[in-house]
């Protein structure tokens, strides 16, 4: 059962905080890069803003700012925190 506040990273609104559940991005080197940057299950992540043209997205994770395209964010499952 999907709980109601379980979603993917690209659907967050600016300011939303979430906890990463699962990284399902295809391609092992991209996945590993995401891991290296701190996108691992259990990490807390916050959407800061979208780029002026709507993509990529800027997140705050582990105390720094990281940018990812929507395409990869779509495959990262998160639980929105209140």
């Amino acid at each position: 059962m999907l709980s109601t506040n379980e979603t993917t990273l690209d659907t967050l609104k600016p300011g939303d905080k979430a906890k990463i559940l699962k990284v399902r991005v295809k391609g092992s080197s991209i996945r590993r890069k995401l891991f290296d940057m701190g996108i691992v299950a259990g990490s807390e992540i916050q959407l800061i803003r979208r780029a002026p043209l709507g993509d990529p997205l800027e997140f705050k994770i582990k105390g720094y700012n990281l940018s990812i395209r929507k395409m990869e964010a779509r495959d990262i499952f998160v639980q929105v925190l209140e």
Partner: protein
Amino acid sequence: MLEDNNKIKVALAGNPNVGKTTLFNAITGSKQHVGNWPGVTVEKKSGFTKYKGYDIEIVDLPGTYSLTAYSMDEIVSRNFIIEEKPDMVIQIVDASNLERNLYLTTQLMELETKIILALNMCDLATERGDKIYLNKMEEMLATPIVKTVASQEKGINHLLDKVIEERNNDQHHGHEIGYGDEIEEKIFEIEKILANDTEITEKYPLRWMSIRLLEGDENIKDKVNKSSVASKINDVLDSIDQEEYEADIADKRYSTINIIFPQICTRANQVLTKSDMIDRVLTNKYLGIPIFLSLMWGAFELTFAFATPFMDMIEIAFTWLAGMVSTNLQPAWLASLVGDGIIAGVGSVLIFVPNIFILFFLLSLLEGSGYLARAAFIMDRLMYKIGMHGKSFIPMLMGFGCNVPAIMAARSIEDDRDRLITILVVPFVSCGARLPIYILFAGTFFGRQAGTVIFAMYVLGILVAVASAKLFRLTVIKGKPAPFIMELPPYRVPKLKSALIHMWDNGAMYIKKAGTIILLGVTIIWILASFPWGVEYGSESSYVGIIGHLFEPFLRPLGFDWRISVALVFGFVAKEIVVGSIGVLFGVGDNQEALSQSLLADPGITPLNSMSLMVFSLLYMPCVAAMSVIKKETGSWKWTIFAILYGVAVAWIMAFVVYQGGKLLGY
């Protein structure tokens, strides 16, 4: 023996933007050597310093977040540590961003090398109110730690003291991470198999290699596949769920950090940092793009307006030199070689040195301030649509100034294919040297419409670059742009010293590289223009004239006669020679006014011819200097020749369409 005893080889590692370059510059001062790592276009910097009787060699490794094999940078870094076995590695750690920085530390530790942590940016951490418990941190990580503020050159001596102390300390520190029973069992199993291969045992830390194999590191797999234990290893690897292990291992590293972190650091509660404040404005939905464009415009304004007096000085110097030579040097042919050939040719290229220096200086300021990453962030959407990466935008933009630094700036793009595409399309961006050609022809033939025609040339250049990028993505360089997984570093006040060093390194590289090839190019052109013996320089009966005639049938459909063909051949050396050689060939020399008149009077040159000529000049190979940096940056003759042929082909086709189309329409 004694000599050996006071040599220390240190590698600098660290995440990007932690102050590695600043620290490197602070330690080594001007005693630096910049080159490339063998076989790849990753910059290698090394430098020396003498300290308390020791000769310390410092190698600046590329900035990386990790030592997996995501990019060439990471492979280069870890190969250096494993294969060249430096005495120790200094990892520069950003004190204001400990968690992510420690991730690299965990990986360095597995490489079983001595590590010193330089806790940099301490000023920022203190200012923010963070507290870092140094003793606790040293104890938990089991590594020596030194506080530094690289930008104020603080803590450098303390760091060097530590280097010497560690050098004379045989005790091995290092605190490796445990990955939990299940993974540890597998690590142990693989380690045991690897131990049977003496070559691997000698060269690599076995535990590290086992972990890398479990993480599915292709680069390491290749190495193992060539060894005697390949099949056994593959049996083990086939039995596990690779994806699961990969995630678990990264997870474990971060969770270890999560356990350590709260014990060594209490972070002040951040409301809004200065950097966040700046970012709110500079990446604002509506203001972000206009501000970006206006800053770029300002950079160009500065590049050109400020460079002009220096360009004039260079021109004056070379004119004087050429004059000296032609009046004083005997015999006449030598005076002509040196004056018309070498000095004129080299001068025509060196004249861009001020531009290139300023462009690199500004680029370095942009990078040091953290804005470069935002530029990529802002433009990525647009660039992605045309099959390129956000990071390609700045190099393309620099191309309007001069293609040479633009091609060199493509280095900041990690993905090889993204970089290659950028390098291949930059030459279509109309650089400053092409402008005189447009001014002459548009000014002569299009009167009040001249501005529009010139603008159209710039637009055409951009369109061809974009279309080519798309075409390459569909054919020779298939695939999608690399993912945009990028840190947006905090804004900082850039360091003047770093910018000056960066400017000097790259400017000098241009002079050296371009210089030699240009010398060769201009000498060849001079020989062609002066022989057979006794002909007038560059006249119809010289080899150049003959080549012009040879090319004429090929260029006839574009509306060019032999004289234009000759000028275009000269243009291979540098575009700014084109106007000058047309002047010579029409027998009016340097006088623009007279040249305009004789072009207008010449029945062979109509507005349509000149349009076709401008299109051709825009698109065919920019100059020898650009070609030589393409060779240098791609490291491949194949792609260099491809770039030349593709450029000429596109130029021919477009000029053909313009000329023949125009004729059909009755112009």
